[in-house]
């Protein structure tokens, strides 16, 4: 490229935009995608030639577009993936066996590089609740541990198997993992999906779609607990949509994942009065422990989505945990016009960060950012 004198830069920068009106996001996006008609494109180009700010926006957004994961599937493959998803149950489970590399990270521990695992599964995008089977892990995995597998499209499996996008997949260890050798099978279930870290370098495994497991009934309760549950049954009419109010005396728990179950139970407080408490089971309902959130609250609803747990009750008190109940924060449900009234009797979690609460006074409030902001329906 020909060298230009420094004065060239200053004269170039000296030119002001012909119009002070900046193209909106619609026009800039259309420009970046080359879908503007020539007349409009010329106008946007003329503005961009003079406006540093708008050039910066287009560059930033174009860079973000380029960072979109290479799915490895063009339109034909995407169509095949849709077809494949619909008819995959007709395929033999043994047809797509691939060797992939995975990075397994234990929460709170430094990442551990796993050289290779064998997978007996088909390809698709992992979803929460999916079961993923891996074998021959050369590193120890601990039952009950949360483990994260970072995934990228695999280029080792033969076409026309399609690949999914890069994702962080948080997995719970469901079965006792085998020792490093000889190879055995470990079942992992997807419990959370997060954007991938920039330096991840692993391949995707297709989870076998687990059948939807009905929530397990809790074990037999003591007479006192039955009495408490019966007392709550009349009032606890709103639960998360995943489980129903008790018909008899047992409260069906919310199934966050196969490892942790959540429930509302009745427990006497220090004055001997029954109030609702949040209970958690780590062993599929064999035993339960009370989660000490607040002595003053009569809890009436609990709901989960992956590791996110929401519990609410009297006086519109709402608690949230993002890590399966290890740490909790009390959330204020309010907007600029006022706060929620009544007891929280129903909680619905529609996705990560997206929660709806219903109160005894009929109010419905929605948050899509983990309870930071709320809007009343």
């Amino acid at each position, binding site marked *: 490229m020909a060298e230009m*004198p420094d004065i060239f830069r200053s004269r170039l920068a000296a030119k002001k935009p012909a119009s002070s009106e900046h193209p909106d996001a*619609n026009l800039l*996006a259309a420009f970046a995608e080359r879908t503007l008609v020539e007349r409009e494109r010329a106008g946007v180009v003329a503005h961009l030639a003079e406006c540093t700010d708008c050039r910066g926006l287009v560059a930033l957004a174009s860079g973000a577009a380029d960072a979109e994961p290479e799915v490895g599937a063009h339109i034909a493959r995407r169509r095949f993936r849709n077809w494949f998803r619909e008819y995959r149950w007709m395929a033999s489970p043994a047809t797509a066996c691939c060797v992939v590399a995975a990075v397994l990270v234990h929460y709170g521990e430094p990442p551990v590089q796993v050289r290779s695992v064998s997978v007996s599964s088909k390809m698709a995008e992992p979803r929460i609740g999916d079961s993923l089977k891996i074998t021959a892990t050369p590193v120890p995995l601990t039952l009950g541990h949360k483990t994260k597998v970072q995934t990228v499209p695999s280029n080792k499996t033969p076409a026309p198997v399609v690949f999914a996008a890069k994702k962080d997949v948080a997995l719970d260890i469901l079965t006792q993992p085998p020792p490093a050798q000889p190879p055995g099978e470990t079942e992992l279930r997807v419990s959370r999906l997060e954007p991938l870290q920039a330096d991840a370098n692993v391949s995707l495994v297709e989870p076998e779609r687990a059948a939807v497991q009905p929530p397990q009934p809790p074990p037999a309760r003591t007479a006192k607990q039955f009495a408490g549950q019966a007392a709550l049954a009349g009032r606890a009419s709103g639960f998360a949509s995943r489980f129903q109010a008790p018909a008899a005396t047992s409260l069906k728990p919310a199934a966050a994942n196969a490892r942790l179950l959540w429930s509302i139970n009745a427990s006497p407080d220090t004055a001997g009065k029954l109030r609702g408490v949040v209970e958690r089971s780590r062993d599929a309902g064999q035993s339960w422990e009370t989660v000490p959130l607040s002595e003053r609250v009569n809890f009436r609803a609990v709901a989960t989505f992956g590791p996110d747990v929401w519990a609410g009750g009297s006086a519109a008190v709402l608690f949230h945990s993002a890590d399966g109940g290890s740490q909790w924060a009390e959330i204020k449900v309010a907007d600029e016009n006022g706060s929620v009234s009544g007891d929280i009797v129903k909680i619905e979690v529609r996705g990560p960060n997206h929660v709806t609460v219903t109160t005894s006074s009929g109010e419905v409030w929605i948050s899509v950012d983990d309870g930071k902001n709320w809007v009343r329906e």
Partner: protein
Amino acid sequence: MANSETIAGIPAHGAQPGLTVSEYPPYFAKLYARSGGEKFGLTFEELAGILQEISGQYLGPGASANEAAELHLSLRLEELVLARACASGNEAAWECFLGRYRSKLFTAAAAIAKEDSAARELADGLYGDLFGTRRADGGARVSKLASYTGRGSLEGWLRMVLAQEWVNRQRGRRRLVSFEERCEAGAQFEAKQDVATSVDARLEQAVDEALSETSDEERLLVASWYLDGRTLAEIARMLGVHESTVSRRMNKITASLRKRILRGLQKRGMNARAAEEAMEVDVRDLLVDVRGRLQGKRA
């Protein structure tokens, strides 16, 4: 839509009152069938109103029916309907939007912010604006999705909005940094120097003349390269062309500019050798306060 809530600033029903289906342009019916609006409760009249609102926004009052048709047919209808349905609070639309765009939003935010927690904050902040957590004076929900017009893909629009939000946040942070913090960070504050402009005015004039003869697209390329410091790859992404195309064009443009500047200098009385020498002079040797001139020009 079953929910006829007015989206702040953009009425949900913009269709001309009193018109029947048959009185709209015939292609409107095809567009309605293609849009999939039915599944989100969007009526034909509502879509017609949206289309007319968009053509009013982008076309002048004297635009012909053909121009309006060309614009309408170029719109991303399915995404437009989804966005407008989300903006008016349709739950099915919102679930569909979440399924398709939630992870893309995070991925784009990560690419823009480069750092995980900042990316999350950026994406979550925009997510709230898209959902419409604020209300206008009349009580109507204010959702950013109501401003999507389907000119480009919804995904591309989301990236652009994210980029804008990121830039605004960065600007806000810069303004809040105090003098003391800047000193602690090691910022050096130079004493104002006397300006001594010794640049040959003929060189300035020749450069201005050469730049005025370039096309807008050529100036966009040279501004991206010389002012913004972008790489060829980045410029190629901005324009949607291959990097080698940008490289070839840049070589051609700068060679042409150089020739024109030299010609301009010779036209102003310099001989060829002096003109070449003028092009080689480093402005720092001439004590030209370039920053001051730029700030003076921009003020």
